């Protein structure tokens, strides 16, 4: 008898956790009946406040995963739960409020004629009152440091600035999860840096789960966890360090490893001992200057 209260406490805690999770349960998907399967029996969970990177070469099914999370597509088999709610045609409006998406092409997701109109677009769709919109526009533009551009028209903005507006538009609806579907792929290195900085700031300031879909491995190093997709299946899951220590296998499935990772490899080949896989310049530097003392 005595263990009952504790037990119910535990299950309530479990439910609470599930409320802030995206879960894929044995999901399979294909575009039509004769088409090959794009995803095969995919299962994973994404927790609250977590930054998960999904990587894989073209056609590995990573973008399909993003569209499934948002109810833009529905799986043929298995189910997807967003905050404990199943994604199906009846629930997509609720789901889309919680799952924000930033796409690859900065131009083709800019709906409004000015920055503020674009940030408002999502809020207008969800029927928010005007006063709240004005307030949220200010807040979210501040979060991506685009306040000075509120009245600007899209053709006067750079690609990076447009993507920051896209992030602001998503933030304005205050979602629990943000998916960046190759959001930096079309940007120059400067724009890419801006966006990554913005993302880090935003994730630090608000309690958000972040899902970045990319084939830029540099981006992956900053994530908490990495899911590697190959041929529609989850091929590997782990921390960036775990993933990059399997360099040979990554290269086998057509993924490139970051420069630092390659350099570390070469150094090891040259006879140096490097105790753990470095993810950035700083870490490699640490390894090198402590080389003698750790020997």
């Amino acid at each position: 008898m005595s263990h009952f209260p504790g037990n119910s406490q535990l299950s309530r805690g479990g439910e609470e956790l599930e409320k802030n999770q995206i879960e894929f349960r044995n999901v399979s998907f294909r575009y039509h009946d004769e088409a090959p399967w794009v995803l095969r029996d995919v299962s994973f969970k994404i927790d609250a406040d977590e930054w998960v990177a999904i990587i894989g070469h073209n056609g590995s099914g990573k973008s399909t995963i993003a569209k499934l999370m948002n109810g833009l597509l529905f799986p043929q088999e298995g189910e997807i739960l967003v905050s404990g709610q199943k994604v199906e045609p009846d629930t997509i409006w609720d789901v889309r409020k919680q799952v924000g998406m930033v796409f690859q092409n900065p131009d083709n997701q800019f709906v409004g004629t000015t920055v503020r109109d674009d940030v408002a677009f999502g809020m207008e769709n969800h029927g928010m009152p005007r006063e709240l919109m004005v307030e949220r526009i200010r807040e979210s533009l501040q979060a991506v440091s685009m306040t000075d551009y509120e009245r600007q028209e899209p053709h006067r903005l750079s690609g990076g600035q447009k993507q920051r507006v896209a992030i602001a538009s998503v933030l304005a609806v205050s979602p629990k999860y943000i998916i960046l579907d190759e959001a930096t792929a079309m940007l120059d290195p400067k724009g890419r840096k801006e966006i990554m900085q913005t993302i880090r700031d935003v994730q630090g300031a608000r309690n958000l789960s972040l899902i970045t879909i990319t084939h830029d491995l540099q981006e992956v190093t900053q994530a908490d966890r990495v899911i590697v997709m190959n041929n529609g299946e989850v091929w590997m899951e782990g921390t960036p360090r775990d993933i990059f220590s399997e360099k040979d296998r990554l290269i086998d499935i057509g993924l490139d490893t970051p420069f630092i990772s390659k350099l570390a490899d070469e150094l090891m080949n040259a006879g140096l001992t490097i105790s753990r896989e470095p993810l950035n310049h700083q870490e490699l530097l640490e390894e090198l200057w402590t080389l003698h003392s750790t020997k």
Partner: protein
Amino acid sequence: MNNSMIIGQYVPAESVIHKMDPRSKIAIIFFFVLIVFFANSVMSYGLLTVFGVTAAASSKVPLRFIMKGLTPVWFLIIFTFLLHLIVTKEGDVLYNLLGWKIYEEGVVQGAAISLRFFLLILVTSLLTLTTTPIEITDAIEELLGPLKKIRFPVHELALMMSISLRFIPTLMQETEKISKAQASRGVDFRTGSFKDRLKAIVPLLVPLFVSAFKRAEELAMAMEARGYRGGEGRTKLRELKVGKVDFMIYALFLLVVIGLFLTRS
């Protein structure tokens, strides 16, 4: 690409006309166009001219922009005047030019009709000169609102217009890019016969259309991802407000209308 490109004819300025609600502007212009046809005396024409010119002057739009709007119709104005001069054969003969008799009534009617034209064009071009395209779109959406009852897709129409406005500069930039790309592959847009140049447009239009369709598809997906589901239950950020200025102009316009009917002969 010119960065200061402005779509349409809008000339930004701080004026009474700029501050007016676009719906008020459209309504007043509509009624003005109607009453212009009621004028039939010197006084009534004078009154309308004063109203039109005052409106144009108070808009603070530089004269050259207003004249630019009138250029395509100057021909029409002069043509109507000449036509009346030749065709109307009433009243006293004013002048006899090598057997061509110019009658008094011809001059009067010609002048009246030309003035009508001038006033119509002047006032209607003030709308596009002092109102941004997006404001006009909002006004049209509001004014057509009642048509929603008969299932007329008012919201969709307005959204289509605003998306078109948003993509005009984007597509123009793209056109320039494609034309440069094709020129570098040897397509000649500038020389040759008219037929040759027309043919040179094809390799420009095909990629432009392909990319426009691709954009449309991606935009639709992005809109859906951001929760777009038609006009139902949607709120709006941009709001139109009828203010003091509007009521003042209404009153003024009402006076002009009353004045017009008093001075008609």
